[in-house]
């Protein structure tokens, strides 16, 4: 249906095309091509399994499509999409928690979910790291993932999450300490 886009990315032009009914669909296809990979990894590190990440990513883009009229270009497209993906991810995790009783949650813990996912190829240390990260509160986990995996600057993170740089630094420090404690406890 749509061929892989090799068109040079021009954000201002894409934004204009997204607001024109005649070019909206094509511009949206370019937008998906440009951001799909970045958003996938952001989501995947939170929901852990590939199937869940695929569902949340599709829902993120569908939300973006249906909310295009609400995007006025005040923020960057990347910021706008990141926030949608963030909300979709947190809502997904919350729904999943509500759907599971405590016993179920223990049965389908992080280790069990990662073992059942054919697209997780980590060793024991990798599984322990994911268990440690999963034990963090959702927002602290997001900060840790953005800093640790994406090596994002605190200033950029501040714009994405709408949190002060100081608060983000403190949040990352707490996350690292908890993960470190987790591994010390394993020794």
């Amino acid at each position, binding site marked *: *249906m*749509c061929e*892989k886009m090799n068109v040079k990315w021009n954000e201002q032009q894409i934004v204009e095309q997204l607001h024109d*009914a*005649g070019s*909206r*669909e094509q511009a949206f*296809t370019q937008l*998906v*091509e440009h951001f*799909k*990979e970045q958003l*996938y*990894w952001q989501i*995947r*590190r939170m929901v852990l399994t*590939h199937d869940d990440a*695929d569902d949340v*990513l*599709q829902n993120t*883009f*569908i939300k973006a*499509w*249906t909310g*295009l009229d609400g995007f006025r270009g005040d923020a960057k497209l990347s910021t706008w999409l990141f926030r949608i993906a963030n909300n979709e991810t947190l809502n997904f995790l919350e729904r999943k928690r509500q759907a599971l009783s405590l016993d179920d949650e223990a049965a389908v813990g992080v280790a069990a979910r990662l073992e059942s996912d054919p*697209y*997780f*190829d*980590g*060793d024991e*240390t*990798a*599984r322990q*790291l*994911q268990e440690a990260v999963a034990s963090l509160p959702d927002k602290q986990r997001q900060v840790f993932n953005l800093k*640790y*995996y994406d090596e994002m600057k605190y200033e950029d993170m501040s714009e994405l999450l709408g949190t002060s740089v100081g608060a983000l630094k403190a949040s990352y420090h707490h996350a*690292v*300490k908890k*993960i*470190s404690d987790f*591994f010390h406890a394993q020794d």
Partner: protein
Amino acid sequence: MKEEDIIKKLDGAKSAFKTPDGYFDSFTSRLMERMEHEGLLAEQRPTQAVVVEMPERVKAIPLTSVKRWVRFAAAAVVAGICMIGGTYLYTRSDVAEQTQADSFAELMSEDMLDEALDYELLNNGQIEYYLTEAY
């Protein structure tokens, strides 16, 4: 060991997540197909781009063919009018004759009818006989 050192030691665990082969290559087309299937794309397409398909039979008939059909139709209508009119007139005259005959029969007695029939059934020879013999 410092906390940051432990985190750095875990760097090898960063690449544990994988995706199916070709996942990113096919993602956009799968997403757009899903959106098309759910009617989300059609909702936002410009209205002027909506083309109302004409039925094939209406589109396919050329003007000359239309004229020919108009002629056939006109001829059929005229033929129909002639048939209906003719049948009507024929039926009317038939009825009129029947009515006239019935009235005549009422006026004449049975003997008179017999006599009239006899007279009617006379051939030329009999007529000549009656005339020459001074009947």
